[in-house]
């Protein structure tokens, strides 16, 4: 087999998703050596139809996408999109996802952006619709019938009276040679026959029977195994590596050192693991970490980069004049992606060429990072997405790809690198950010919110590497690249337009900047200041990054205001909202949960019996990228502080729904993952190092916990653009659960996670009058 493991070989062996490539002849011109369509390798022109869609003589449709499936269902739903827009059966569509040699560069699959990008007017949807338009034009010419007299079924264009021509006959195996039409008309949702249907995920049978090929399962001829040796403490640097300490170990091929990156390569995985354990490395000590116990005070004292999201300039005056001002501070810890599998990657670097099998969510940026690390031209590096364990942002997939590239480069053989659980948790992934969020509000004489003031602090260090910052993940930094850090700066006045991409502002403010209002609410007196400070640990975009943390604070604080006003939490929210879509999901959730106004909180005075309560929370995700409301029903054991969720009812509006089965799976998973994060997940550390390095010290709810009932209402809204769904419901879980605990007990939880100890402390701190 050739060094570069040709594209056809890969397709043949890449598991159940892409089997029996009957359009292989079509793919010959796409071979790696020449690049797709004979162009410069990095130029898969996203403006050209041929970059996205190819139709073979037998009618098979191959589509190329830059948005990949790591468990969120993008493979199935993108296949539906192609089938719908081209009016072909699902089984003739072959989708190729995220391979830098053949798919367009769509950046990173992240941030609930796959649906907005590929399912509205642009990207893959635009390509598929352009292809349908082109095929109709070709058929019109061939059949000598005007386009408006043609219809399409199953890839055959018909003009009535026996006149018909198939896609294969029209373009089979040839290029379209067309640009995408930015004004092309998509098939409207009302006419969908494949999109909008609850098509089961294509990969489920292969997953359930162990046939699915994960990156962990990739085997190359001559492949050997690498392990990394990470520093013992944060900030440590290599003083000396004693290669004699492992000399003669069975199977050992090489000890690899590059600045502070240390790894070993051996014939077998077990040998590599033992050599990594035995290798004697002397490290210069790192500094002392800020104490976890006082970390939230620490970050508020750090030099910060400040941004005003909105400032109506009258908030101080309103607060000073108000008869009632409430103030609360909320705290959210660092949390992990904690992927179920420690990350793995396979690299084959020989001479001046490199190929990587990687579960990165960013194949093109990873290609650039690997090229920088190895000093190769970027076009000589190919990154092929291969699914890893579920990733919810930036787990160690990128960093282990760098590990594999460095080790393969050093031995000039294919190397598979498997991180250990500790590598993944302490020296692999980029954590979700810790936050402190201070809320203040003024209530008027009627109990309505007259002014809302919020100052928040978040911590950052590194992040997604993008195309030119490999130091943003751990291996890149160890190998000598600088992570991006926070540059302190004073904020200027808000300018441009209101943007709520991080949900820094609550849904209840008007969001008026430069005379234009972009918020979802009615509160006109508004001041939102975001401060960002440098983190001692790597951070990254963990599912609903900052949106979750901020929404936890806003929605719990709204509940505090509501309780003070002695109002019903649903009615009080509706009273302060203006946006019809967030109002719509609140009402839909309330109706499904049979919400009835009653005394709030209905705090139990029985100190020992389990107290039951319900809580509500909602969000306009990123301001306008999906809407969710959630009602949580919980029980609190007041003697132990144990919280049990009994039922969740969610409503979500993400515009026209492309696959309701996929959306439901995301909603349900998001709620329970959110519950685990709300109740138990917290990164911990001591003076020198991370101490949550396994599932014994980082607490995830297991299969065997008392799983609550989860109901979801999908508000199908075809008149709007399609928005993301994967991060919607997780955003409101901690808030809804915290509010339910308050309803049940009168105890307000302001720090995540709601551990039994914190619940007991909050119970003890209850106002006896409440």
């Amino acid at each position, binding site marked *: 087999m050739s060094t570069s493991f040709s594209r056809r070989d890969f397709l043949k062996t890449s598991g159940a998703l892409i089997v029996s490539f009957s359009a292989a002849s079509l793919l010959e011109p796409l071979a790696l050596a020449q690049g797709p369509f004979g162009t410069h390798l990095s130029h898969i022109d996203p403006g050209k139809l041929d970059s996205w869609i190819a139709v073979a003589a037998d009618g098979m449709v191959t589509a190329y996408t830059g948005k990949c499936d790591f468990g969120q269902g993008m493979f199935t739903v993108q296949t539906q999109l192609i089938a719908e827009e081209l009016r072909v059966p699902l089984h003739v569509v072959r989708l190729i996802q995220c391979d830098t040699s053949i798919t367009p560069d769509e950046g990173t699959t992240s941030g609930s952006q796959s649906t907005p990008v590929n399912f509205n007017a642009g990207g893959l949807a635009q390509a598929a619709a352009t292809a349908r338009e082109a095929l109709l034009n070709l058929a019109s010419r061939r059949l000598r019938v005007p386009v408006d007299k043609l219809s399409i079924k199953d890839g055959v264009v018909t003009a009535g009276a026996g006149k018909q021509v198939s896609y294969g006959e029209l373009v089979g195996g040839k290029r379209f040679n067309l640009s995408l039409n930015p004004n092309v008309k998509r098939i409207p949702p009302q006419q969908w026959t494949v999109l909008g249907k609850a098509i089961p995920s294509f990969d489920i049978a292969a997953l359930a029977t162990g046939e699915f090929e*994960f990156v962990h399962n990739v085997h190359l001829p001559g492949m050997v195994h690498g392990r990394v040796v990470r520093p013992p403490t944060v900030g440590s640097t290599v003083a000396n590596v004693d290669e004699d300490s492992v000399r003669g170990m069975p199977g050992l091929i090489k000890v690899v050192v590059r600045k502070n990156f240390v790894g070993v390569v051996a014939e077998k995985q077990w040998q590599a693991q033992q050599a990594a354990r035995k290798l004697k490395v002397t490290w210069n000590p790192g500094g002392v970490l800020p104490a976890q116990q006082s970390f939230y005070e620490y970050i508020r004292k750090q030099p910060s980069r400040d941004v005003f999201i909105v400032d109506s300039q009258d908030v101080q005056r309103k607060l000073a004049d108000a008869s009632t001002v409430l103030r609360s501070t909320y705290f959210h810890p660092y949390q992990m992606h904690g992927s*179920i599998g420690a990350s793995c990657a396979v690299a084959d670097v020989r001479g001046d060429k490199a190929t990587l099998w990687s579960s990165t969510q960013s194949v093109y940026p990873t290609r650039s990072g690997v090229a920088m690390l190895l000093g190769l031209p970027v076009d000589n590096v190919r990154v092929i997405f291969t699914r890893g364990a579920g990733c919810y942002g930036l787990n160690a997939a990128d960093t282990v790809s760098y590990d594999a590239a460095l080790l393969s480069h050093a031995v000039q053989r294919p190397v598979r690198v498997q991180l250990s659980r500790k590598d993944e948790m302490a020296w692999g992934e980029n954590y979700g950010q810790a936050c402190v969020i201070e809320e203040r509000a003024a209530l008027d004489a009627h109990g309505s919110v007259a002014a809302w003031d919020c100052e928040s602090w978040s911590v950052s260090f590194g992040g997604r590497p993008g195309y030119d910052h490999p130091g943003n993940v751990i291996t890149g930094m160890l190998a000598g690249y600088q992570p991006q850090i926070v540059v302190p700066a004073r904020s200027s006045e808000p300018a441009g337009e209101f943007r709520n991409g991080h949900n820094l502002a609550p849904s209840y403010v008007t969001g008026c900047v430069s005379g234009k209002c972009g918020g979802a609410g009615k509160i006109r007196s508004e001041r939102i200041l975001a401060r960002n400070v440098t983190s001692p640990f790597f951070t990254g975009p963990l599912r609903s990054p900052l949106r979750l943390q901020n929404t936890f604070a806003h929605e719990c604080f709204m509940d505090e205001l509501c309780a003070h006003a002695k109002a019903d939490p649903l009615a009080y929210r509706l009273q302060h909202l203006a946006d019809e879509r967030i109002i719509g999901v609140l009402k839909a959730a309330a109706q499904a949960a049979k919400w009835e106004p009653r005394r709030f909180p209905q705090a139990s005075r029985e100190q020992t019996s389990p107290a039951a309560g319900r809580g509500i929370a909602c969000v306009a995700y990123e301001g306008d990228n999906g809407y969710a409301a959630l009602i949580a029903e919980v029980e609190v054991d007041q003697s132990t502080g144990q919280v049990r969720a009994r039922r969740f009812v969610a409503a979500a509006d993400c515009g026209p729904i492309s696959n309701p089965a996929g959306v439901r*799976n995301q909603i349900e*998973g998001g709620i*329970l993952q959110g519950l685990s994060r709300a109740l138990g997940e917290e990164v911990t550390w001591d003076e020198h190092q991370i101490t949550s390095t396994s599932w014994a010290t980082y607490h995830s709810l297991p299969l065997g916990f008392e799983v609550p009932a989860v109901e979801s209402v999908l508000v199908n809204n075809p008149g709007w653009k399609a928005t993301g769904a994967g991060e919607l419901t997780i955003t409101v879980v901690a808030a809804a659960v915290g509010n339910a605990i308050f309803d049940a007990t009168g105890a307000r939880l302001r720090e995540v996670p709601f551990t039994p100890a914190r619940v007991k402390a909050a119970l003890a701190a209850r106002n006896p009058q409440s």
Partner: protein
Amino acid sequence: MSAIALKVNGRDHTVEVDPATPLLYVLGDELQLRGPKFGCGLGQCGACTVLMDGRAVRSCITPVSAVGRSEIVTLEGLGTPEKPHPIQQAFIDEQAAQCGFCLSGVVLTAKAFLDHNPKATPAEIHQALSGVLCRCFVHTRMWRAINRYAQARHV
């Protein structure tokens, strides 16, 4: 290095490895099986689960030398996409996966427990899965699939 004989998914194999090698590495690297996965290497999550004479064991902390004459069955040994085992069919019918990486732990732990305890109470089944993780949190669907299999066994 020693030659070690193993019976996996009904077939005999001989591998040349250090006897201390975790069974998981032998299954994944030497036999190129895809079912058992490296999750934690500590026996804490279940992703590496295989059946050893019908009992669920964590292959990441089981030295290959400890297998002896026991018969190993991995997730792919239960059934195929064309002919899945009833518990696999239940997971397919319930769409009980997102990334799917954890399925060896969930499916095989549940199967082994239910096969040995066909009259187990829901609380006992929950207890049996108290050491299995799914980080995409597909729990509600997984429980529907497990209950479907449990009920089918009752009939």
